[in-house]
């Protein structure tokens, strides 16, 4: 394979070291950003200006960092859950819907369940986890018991969740105080998360995300359950052979991943919004962006701490472009789509290493 560069050749390496994978991924992201700049140019915004805007809005000052952190919180929670789901071969693209369901459950507790003040927030998170998880279980059950492809079902469930929440906020749960708007009433103070002063960074959710990332990492690598999830994900036939209950594993993985998306939904409504509203304004497509967060971790939940931050920069960058350059927020989809395309396209490249010298010189 040394046609173009005599002296250099590509050598197949089925077991690439992590550093090379990371390098290839970094190059893929760079390539995606370059490709996106072509599109900005077509849109009529100079790429330099576009990226300068993103930088200024995100990493240039503390305010930008706060925006990035705020976006990183739900991306982290969902990304951790999706990493686990993908590891167990449950291709969950329904995080949008699970997040909306979580937000709904959290809002329901905040608005309608009288609880002692210190218990309100924990109860909201618990309800959000439960409903998000149960919602994911619908698709997992159909996959495990009937064999229905979960990609389509989780996706369809997104739209169904959307309409359920819309129904509530325009109907039974519509707020008394804000006439004419599709909102619920504002949450009582005990149902609102503390935030870093002057920002919208609800730090308890952030801590929750980091803790869960570490816990799920340990679950995968250090427990028998994690071993089962990995076997089911890598080779279901071997799992069956070894007597691992595949259906139960898929259900569990779905429950956890949906539950984490639900937690993300609670976090958003309990801090930034302080009410339930049109779910597309809560989820903002983060359920899809988190797919890339998870993809980048290569199956390691703890790495989502970094990859969620990375995608949060993109996401916050999208916010900034919308405000400063009046570009539609869809620009985030362009980034996400391109990054995912470049990432999967580049993945096989990690299996090659560049070598100097003739054949077998290194053997």
């Amino acid at each position, binding site marked *: 394979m040394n046609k173009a560069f005599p002296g250099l050749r590509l050598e197949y390496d089925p077991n690439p070291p992590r550093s090379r994978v990371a390098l290839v991924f970094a190059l893929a992201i760079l390539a995606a950003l370059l490709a996106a700049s072509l599109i900005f140019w077509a849109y009529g915004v100079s790429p330099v200006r576009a990226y300068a805007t993103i930088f200024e809005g995100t990493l240039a000052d503390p305010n930008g960092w706060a925006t990035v952190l705020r976006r990183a919180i739900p991306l982290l929670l969902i990304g951790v859950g999706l990493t686990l789901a993908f590891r167990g071969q449950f291709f969950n693209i329904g995080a949008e819907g699970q997040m909306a369901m979580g937000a709904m459950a959290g809002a329901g507790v905040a608005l309608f369940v009288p609880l002692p003040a210190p218990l309100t927030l924990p109860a909201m998170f618990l309800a959000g986890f439960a409903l998000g998880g149960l919602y994911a279980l619908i698709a997992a059950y159909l996959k495990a018991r009937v064999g229905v492809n979960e990609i389509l079902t989780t996706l369809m469930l997104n739209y169904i969740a959307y309409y359920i929440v819309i129904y509530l906020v325009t109907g039974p749960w519509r707020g008394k105080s804000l006439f004419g708007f599709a909102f619920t009433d504002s949450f009582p103070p005990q149902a609102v998360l503390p935030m870093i002063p002057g920002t919208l960074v609800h730090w308890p959710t952030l801590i929750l995300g980091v803790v869960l990332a570490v816990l799920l990492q340990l679950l995968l690598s250090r427990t*028998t359950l994690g*071993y089962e999830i990995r076997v089911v994900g*890598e*080779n279901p*036939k*071997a799992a069956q*052979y070894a007597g691992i209950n595949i259906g139960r594993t898929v259900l569990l993985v779905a429950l956890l991943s949906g539950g984490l998306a639900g937690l993300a939904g609670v976090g958003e409504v309990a801090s930034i919004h302080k009410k339930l509203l049109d779910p597309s304004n809560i989820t903002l497509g983060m359920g899809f962006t988190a797919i890339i967060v998870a993809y980048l971790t290569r199956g390691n939940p703890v790495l989502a701490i970094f990859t969620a931050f990375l995608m949060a920069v993109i996401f916050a960058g999208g916010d900034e472009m919308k405000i400063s350059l009046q570009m539609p927020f869809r620009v985030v989809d362009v980034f996400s789509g391109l990054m995912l395309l470049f990432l999967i396209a580049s993945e096989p490249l990690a299996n090659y290493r560049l070598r100097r010298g003739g054949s077998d010189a290194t053997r």
Partner: protein
Amino acid sequence: MGQPLLRLHNITKRFPGVVANDGVSLEVFPGEVLALLGENGAGKSTLISILYGLYRPDEGEILLEGRPVRIASPTHALRLGIGLVPQHPMLVNRHTIAENLALGIGNPLFPSQRIVPLIEKMSLAYGLQIDPKAPIHTLSPGQKQRVEIVRSLLRGAKVLILDEPTSVLTPQEAEALFAVMRGLRAAGKSLIFISHKLEEVLAISDRCTVLRRGKVVGSIPTSEASKARLAEMMVGRSVSFDRKRAEPRLGGKLLELSGLKASSSRGLPALRGVNLQLRSGEIIGVAGVAGNGQSELVEVLSGLRKIDGGTATLGGQPLSAGPAQLFAAGVAHIPEDRIHMGTVPSMTVAENLALREYAKPPLARGILSDSSALEANAQAKVREYAVATPSIHTPSRLLSGGNIQKVILARELAGQPKLILAVHPTYGLDVGATEQVHKVLLDKTYEGAGVLLVSEDLDEILQLADSVAVLYHGELKGPFPVGEVTREELGLLMTGSQEAGSGGREARA
């Protein structure tokens, strides 16, 4: 004899670390059957791949009717008149024979309809008996092979390479194939018959060329060949065809099946009342053509499939639990598909060695895995079974087939299994690995285990088993003590009838 139709001269093909073909020369004349013999890894597959345009030789030349040719691709090979009947048929299961045969050469409109008369003509000429409108998935392995033969003939093949064509056939089906081959030979075609079954080679070929470690060790007329001589040429030392089995030490009743019934994955009856008794220390071979209930039998016994009727007991206890419980009860399972069922290719050797006991002490404490115990377990097993692996943290997919099988043996036979279900345990392994697998299985029987050896390879069964049973269409005939049956009788039982040929068998999954 005139000019050879095909001549290979000094063909050499190297791969990193191996010389697969080393100065191979051979020739085949019109109207001749040349047998190409060799152990696994002797270079037969490489040579076929070169002839069929999949590999380019590093050195040497190929002469077709005296003219040098460079075979660039399988299609090019076909255009030159070289056809291959592959070991595993390359057919579209859901399409009809006609649709398969029209692929790539049919008319632009109604391709499959217009090719029907051609197929019928060909079928008649060589006694192939195929129905162009039959879907492939309804055919027996022998019929599929004939479709492949017609495919080559339709494309004007003068040289036909048959790659281990009898490996999936009953002796009777093989006989029918030989009749077709004789017809082709009479029509002046050149046939290259690849096999390691010596009886067949002696029965059908005119000349034998033997490969060993990439080199031609000799080429002799079949009339001068004998089994012993060919075998010696193949493996390079004189081989005894004696049984490997020493006198068994039979113990008490171990496995008892009575009226056992089970269904296939498609819900059709697959086992129709199987009766069998296996004593500890005993090896019973289960012969039969694939798809007659072997998979279902093994799955039932290993807990992967539920019992529809009848009983199965192991040491008096009913066998009705999941695979994990049955393993704990002493059922070891060496599965047919060692890569996709027996291991998780992307996981490490150490993790694969833990597939059975990962949740039990010492590998786990409560819900926590103990990684040092996992490593210690792997080190011990890798040493005991001499698994050649760079490290216990190497993904198992990077191991050779023989070493993957050793990983499985090490794991399955670790405790003191009572019942060993061994399915095609040496399929595709080289001589050394085969020897080791056989030895391990035999040793375990001397320690008291009973073995159910499911194999399509009668030779293997006859070498190892104490008695042999035949599964045909979900019914088990036998077992018969190995000394009291002939291959021919077994072959007839495998076809379920007294007739030779492929008739009478139902569609296979």
